[in-house]
């Protein structure tokens, strides 16, 4: 446990010193621009525009960080051979992987929390005071964070057995495919034979269903998010992440380091 914590803390420190959090400046500028622009258009949709702009930016920036840094977590240590001295210490390879995973999730949490704070400030400038229903934005942010953790796990898995470039492609591909997982489940036979249809449906259940984490539509319009949905999404993310990380640990534990 201590080993995982040590690796995680160092991963977080690396992200901070490599100036990953500088993306927050970009986000802040975007939110300021958005707020100024919104101030000049009609009053009714100000909140919608700010919230959807903010949540989209939180999601997109997070996805970029998750994919690129997620792949780099292990591949960079292997390329630069910083891993060699570490693995000669009493550290198991799966402990290293978990440490890396939690370190990046910690980084993303701080980053996402800062962006959420920025979003609330922008919202407050266009319509103060804030209302109780604005708290749902936090639920949307939480679900985005779960989604990001899942993407990190996938990036980690792919980077354990392929080149960084391919790992980025695979992770991005999985994300895009996962957005349509739910649609694939309900696909109707448009001239497809039943076995092909069964195959597509089967695949759709293996893909991570990223729609589980998307409540932006409801939140933008100030509607609530059912509690059970949050629970289900949380459980789904934890299980899926656990399986993916186990797979990554199995692959990585047998890997020869060049």
């Amino acid at each position, binding site marked *: 446990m*201590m*080993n995982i914590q040590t690796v995680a803390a160092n991963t977080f420190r690396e992200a901070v010193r490599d100036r990953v959090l500088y993306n927050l400046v970009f986000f802040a500028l975007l939110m300021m621009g958005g707020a100024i622009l919104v101030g000049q258009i009609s009053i009714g949709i100000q909140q919608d525009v700010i919230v959807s702009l903010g949540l989209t930016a939180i999601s997109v920036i997070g996805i970029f960080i998750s994919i690129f840094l997620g792949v780099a977590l292990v591949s960079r240590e292997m390329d630069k*051979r*910083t891993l060699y*001295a*570490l693995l*000669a210490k009493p550290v198991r390879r799966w402990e290293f992987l978990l440490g890396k995973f939690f370190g990046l999730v910690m980084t993303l949490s701080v980053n996402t929390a800062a962006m959420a704070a920025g979003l609330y400030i922008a919202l407050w400038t266009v319509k103060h005071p804030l209302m109780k229903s604005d708290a749902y934005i936090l639920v949307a942010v939480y679900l985005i964070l779960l989604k990001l953790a899942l993407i990190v796990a996938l990036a980690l898995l792919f980077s354990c057995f392929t080149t960084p470039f391919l790992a980025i492609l695979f992770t991005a591909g999985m994300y895009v495919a996962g957005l349509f997982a739910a649609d694939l489940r309900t696909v109707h036979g448009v001239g497809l034979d039943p076995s092909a249809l069964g195959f597509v449906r089967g695949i759709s259940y293996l893909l991570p269903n990223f729609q589980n984490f998307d409540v932006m539509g409801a939140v933008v319009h100030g509607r609530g998010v059912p509690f059970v949905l949050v629970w289900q999404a949380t459980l789904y993310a934890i299980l899926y992440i656990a399986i993916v990380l186990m797979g990554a640990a199995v692959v990585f534990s047998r890997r020869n*380091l060049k």
Partner: protein
Amino acid sequence: MGMPQDAIEIENLSKEYPHGFLHLKRKKSLENLTMRVEDGEVFGFLGPNGAGKSTTIKLLMRLIFPSAGTARILGKSIDDISMHNSIGYLPEQPYFYDYLTAYEVLDYFARFHGLPAGDRAARVQAMLKKVGLDTAKKIQLRKYSKGMLQRVGLAQAILHDPRVVVLDEPMSGLDPLGRREVRDIILELKREGRTVLFSTHVLSDAEMLCDRVGVIVGGRLRGTGAPGELVDVKAQGMEILFELYGAAGNLPLLAQATRTGERYRVQLPETELYQALDSLKAAGARILSVAQIKPTLEEYFMHLVEADRAQASAVEVSGK
């Protein structure tokens, strides 16, 4: 007290890598290596680049996994994670997190050995001093020279007081001063009773430091023994150094001597030594030294490498 235990025991260790486009071919980088490093000795692992030295060391550190064979360190299987508490390892051309300072990187590594915070700080400080980085401890490693990184590498390898220290090419890329410092550290480790296994292709380092060496060429161990022993096997001839002033007359020995001013150096078979000394004495020469001609470790080494190349090309020809 029982028999002195072997610090490192390697049995029939082999490593093959798949290669070719579809990974269907296999290339052997280490073949049936069996070797022992005794407790408390400095063992030099010699071989040209690509001979299998790093492969062996990485196998011991579980960075790569063997195709066959086993190894034990201090009586424990290398699969046993607790073994890593008693060993220190310096990778070849070490590279550490360059966003950390030397102090931070050592503190980071020390945490994995479960040292309590107070001990850790004292230990890290002592190590920084030992490798001469005390004044540079607050500088990020991205600003370090190669020699300084090597010192950080050494410090992290011995940080936790390990009984066995494995150093992969510890002198590579260092200037003469740096090499000297690394040599001193290795000798100090020996004085402290630790076992040191280090790989090198610089033979003078091995001759100077090692109790025993193992020579590996083409993935196979070609011989182990004390540097002197290995070389003695092929010792041949004697060398006389003498001064001769004035007319030398018809001393036949001079025909085969090399002359520098009034000094002569002549090499001859041991059986002819006393006869030659008598004739030199008669001619009024002043004998300065008589020494056995020992081939250096380098010659021994080159002999093995050339034999290996000859064999490899013979295989290639017969394969065609």
